[in-house]
C-alpha cells in the first residue's frame, strides 16, 4: 500500500494555494507611431520602429499582379 493523504483537502485550502497562480499581464504600451499595442521597451512589430528610428527591416508590401 502506498502512502496516501489522510484527509480530504478542502476547497478553501485549494483556493488559498491557487491564490498566487494568476498569470500577470505583459507590459503593453501603445506604439507612439502607429498606436498599435506593443511590448514596453520593445520594437513595434507592426511598424517596425522603436524610439522613432530603429526599424526592423519591414517587408515591402506586396502588390498582386
Amino acid at each position, binding site marked *: 500500500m502506498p502512502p496516501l493523504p489522510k484527509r480530504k483537502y478542502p476547497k478553501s485550502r485549494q483556493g488559498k494555494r491557487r491564490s498566487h497562480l494568476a498569470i500577470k499581464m505583459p507590459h503593453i504600451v501603445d506604439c507612439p507611431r502607429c498606436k498599435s499595442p506593443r511590448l514596453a521597451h520593445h520594437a513595434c512589430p507592426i511598424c517596425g520602429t522603436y524610439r522613432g528610428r530603429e526599424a526592423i*527591416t519591414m517587408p*515591402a508590401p506586396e502588390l498582386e*499582379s
Partner: protein
Amino acid sequence: MRHRVAGRHLGRETSHRLSLYRNLVTDLLRYERITTTEAKAKEIRPMAEKIITLGRRGDLHARRQAMRFVYDTAVVKKVFDEIGPRMKDRPGGYLRLTGLEPRKGDGARMSSIELVDFVDAPPTPRPQRVTAAPKAAAPVAAAPDAPALEPAEPTVDEAEPEGESAEAVAEETTESASELAQDDAEEREAGHSAE
C-alpha cells in the same frame, strides 16, 4: 558568494559555445545587424565591441588579434577598413540592442543587435509598373492615389486594396500606350470626360 560565475552557458559545452560566439560575432560584423535571442545578443556584445576597438586601432598586431577570434578574414578586413574608421571618434558603445517580439515557437525573448550607425535599407514599397504609371499615359485617376500611398509607409493590409486599384488603372494605361496613338488619344479623352 556569487563570485566568478559571470556569463551564460546557453546549454552548450565550452567549445560549442565558443564556436557559437565566434560565428555570431562574425555574422554581426558582416551584416551589421542580426536578429538572435536576447541572451546570445547580450553575450556577444562585449566580444564584438572589442573586435571593433581592435579595428579602430588598425595596426598589424591588432589585426592579428582580431583574426584569432573572427572566422572570416574578409570580415576582419571589413572591420579594419570600414567599421573601424567609421567608429574612430566613438569611445566604445558601438552596438545597440533592440528588443523584439518573443519567438513564435518557444516564446524566447528575441532581440536585434546592430552597429549604432546602421542604416536600414528603406523598403521599396511598389513595383516599377506603378511608379511608371503617371508617365505612361497620365492616368488622372491613378495620379492622386500614388503620392498618397508613398509617404504613409503603409501597413500591409492597408496597402493591398489601394495598390490593387492603382495597379489596375496602370495596367489599363500601359495597354493603351502600346496601342495606336489614335486609340490612346481617344481613351484619354474618354478618361477626361468620365471625370
